């Protein structure tokens, strides 16, 4: 009996040897910030749920270059801000990517080593500044016509980033939403696109919704979107995410 006890103790010792405490820190770090556009240095207006920050966790491979590191994507809010509170601490390569702007990293473009190295630990704020394809400004902010349609006008400017060819403008939409989250899918009141050409740059472009808004006595949220396409004869302007929309700010109008 005593011997058996000895065996049990021995067995327990063996089992203990396999007990390593899993003490890897939980995802307790926060990364947040804003994507600015370089023209007026305002936050970049983007679509709802735009996944336009690519991040790569580089520290866990401990320098082993043959290990495969996958890309992850961070979403950005319409107003250009982002905030993620469940990140593992570590070193990340962060790259604004596949959005309505020129490539961010002029040297590495979108190669695996592109982007900025950010050590994420605790709460880190990291802003980026990008060059959007288009800047769209309100000329006449949205108003409600007598027959409850939405009208407004804008003008756009094609931006240039040194070293890059410009894509061509493609089309424009008037977006009308009943919530603050006006997105590129809010096309119901303006179902037909407005075709754009490059020479419309700087001109006043007017929009009026195809029909009246459905409800009165509430607020509607309006913005205008425009996108670009690969320039004719210049396939090199097919930048990642080509076709993503640039937007105006979201304007609230009260429909009486």
């Amino acid at each position, binding site marked *: 009996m005593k011997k058996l006890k000895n065996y049990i103790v021995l067995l327990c010792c063996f089992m203990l040897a396999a007990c390593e405490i899993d003490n890897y820190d939980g995802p307790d770090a926060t990364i947040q910030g804003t994507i600015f556009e370089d023209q007026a240095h305002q936050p970049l207006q983007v679509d709802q749920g735009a996944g336009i920050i690519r991040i790569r966790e580089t520290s866990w491979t401990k320098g082993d270059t*043959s290990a*495969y590191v*996958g*890309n992850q994507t961070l979403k950005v809010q319409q107003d250009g801000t982002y905030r993620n509170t469940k990140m593992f601490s570590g070193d990340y390569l962060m790259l604004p990517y*596949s959005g309505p702007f020129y490539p961010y990293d002029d040297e590495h473009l*979108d190669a695996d080593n592109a982007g900025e190295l950010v050590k994420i630990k605790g709460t880190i704020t990291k802003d980026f500044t990008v060059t959007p394809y288009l800047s769209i400004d309100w000329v006449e902010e949205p108003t409600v016509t007598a027959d409850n349609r939405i009208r407004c006008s804008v003008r756009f400017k094609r931006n240039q980033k040194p070293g890059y060819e410009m894509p061509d403008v493609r089309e424009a939409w008037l977006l009308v939403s009943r919530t603050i989250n006006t997105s590129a899918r809010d*096309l119901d009141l303006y*179902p*037909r*696109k407005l075709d754009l050409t490059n020479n419309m740059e700087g001109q006043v472009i007017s929009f009026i919704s*195809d*029909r*009246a808004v459905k409800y009165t006595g509430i607020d509607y949220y309006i913005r205008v979107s425009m996108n670009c*396409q*690969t320039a004719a*004869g210049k*396939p*090199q302007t*097919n930048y*990642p*995410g*080509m*076709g993503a929309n640039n937007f105006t700010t979201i304007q609230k109008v009260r429909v009486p």
Partner: protein
Amino acid sequence: MNMKKYRYTHIVFVLVLSLCLLGSCTKLDIAPKTILTNEAIYNEAGIKAYMAGMYNHLPMEDFKYDATDGYFRELNINTFATSTGEFFNGNNVGMKLHRGGYWGDGFMIIRQANTLINDLPKYAAELPKAEEWIGEAKFIRAYVYFQLAKRYGGLPVIETPQVLNDDGSSLWVARSSHADTYNFILADLDDAIAKMPGSSEIGRANKWVAAAFKSRVALTAGTIARYGAAKFPVWEVNGVMLEGIPEDKANDYMKQAWDAANMVTESSVYQLHRGNPDKTANFAEVWEKADNNKESIFIRKYDYLNWVHSNDAVMSPLRMTITYGGRFCPTMNWVELFDGLPVDPATGRFSGLDADGNYIVYDNCHQLWDGAEPRLRASLLLPGTTYKGVKLDIRAGVFVSSVDPAVTKIKKFSRDDGAISEAYNSWPTDANANLFRNGTILRTTQDPRNQTDTYSYTNDQGQTLKIFKIGQDGPLISGVGGNHTYTGFYGRKYLNLSMTTAQTALHESTQSWIEIRYAEVLLNKAEAAIELAQHGEANYNGANMLQDAFTCINDIRDRAGATLLTSPAQLSMDPAYPKFQGTGSFVEAPTRGLQLLRIERYKELAFESKIYWDLRRWFTFDTQINQYRKRGLYPFMFSKGATIDASGTPDGKYIYDARATENGSDRLTYGVNSYYETIPGDELKNNPLLQKNRNQ
């Protein structure tokens, strides 16, 4: 106990035990019975079984392909035909691409083919057919490589069965360039053509199958070279062009495509099916008699005991199946490509209106279709025709009897600009002017099959008829229950109409899938010819290219009962009609000549899983399918003068209203960077030499 004695007995015991155990140590060297040896495989019957295994796994987008779930699934509900404008159903109203990530299953078949290609030469002396089988294995390898190349561009080219070493590095192969990958596939097919005999068991490849397939592959390579370069910058890694083929190689591939197709057409082994003088019935027979007509070049057979599919249960109208059903709704955008319909030549859209903008009144539910192109009539189920004992009944509403079509003219009561989708009762907004709100047109939201809310109409003879307000087979517009047609159309191609409704259930269908048919070869040849003619090669191989394309297209059109081209000059380099600015303008192309050809492909090859890959190789997907909204055709019947047959199905005078579908009206947009799929992440982990695709 004496400790010393204990130890001694203990040691003796262990020694004796060990000796006993040693007795059972003979060398265990018996061949495992569960592994087939070469002797079992390398004979006629063994090879047939081995080949069957590979054919069974060939990745075809057939009845068992589901665009969401992938190859070899139970049902084919999700379809990428939604994205091309061919047809859609309630399960697929948004953009639907092919299922991503096909890789390992393909390389499994490639390895099996490589094993044959590697081993068979050793048996050449005893097996007279060894060379033919090597050719067949190369066809299979080419088939799978082509499916992969369409997705990813350049691929690791693996020509021998790989052998694993300790760290796995012997399995690592880098990607060849996109062009070299296609060259490899084409070389395999050349070998297959040279080695295989001119005939084969049904379902297996032969010389002509390989040639027909080669025309498809070479044409794909040629169009990627010609049109891909304009869309994408060069994607080169370490000097290897992984995506895109240099533009100057386009004509070479076009010539290969033309030669391969010409080989098939010259041989006359296969030809267009023309067995029935009735052109509508004849076109339907291409599928109904797929197993024994000369048009089927390469088919996949099904078998009731071993290998069934569910196409009829999924795709039939609800009244013609006991389960599922209603998932085959061709769109107006596709229907209006055909001849013999009231299409406005200025816009290319179905109008159904007279010069004053009033609806044209048709005498009955089938008059509109009576004059339509036979190919269309055979591709759709037509209202008023009885299939499987069910008289198809499609109607979106009835006019009250006070409206007499002989007296009252009706102006279009909906908007059809390809962009707006709205309910009939929401426009015009004025309730008095809206025919649906002022009580002029009656509808019900009951299940169309079980309508009790009928319209009682007393005719001139004093009889009271109970008229179903909406068709018993739909269409589905706001509020109607059941999974009836969304567009006002039901497709027919590939349905087995000889099944009874009671038989139509899941896992009961066995009609064959035609993977390659002669009509495609003719269209491949015509496309290659026009591409050559429009790019500096007016004559090739002793043939005038435009004249040849003209002959091929007219051959197809004549069989289809369509209007013939009048002269090769129609296949011109004039600009193609821009969208909604001419007949067939839904289909984009760089020139009018190519537009005519591409429309012909849309009409002839629809619902056959071909058009999706065409739009990708033409690189027009992102411009043609941009904020695209599916359209339908909605028939309305006048109760005035209507009759009812013995089954209770009414007929009367009809008008037809085309517009965007009300249900499932999602806008579809194909992203400009969707033409190449990303290399699966798992494969990148497995193989450090594998390079990513652009934008990955």
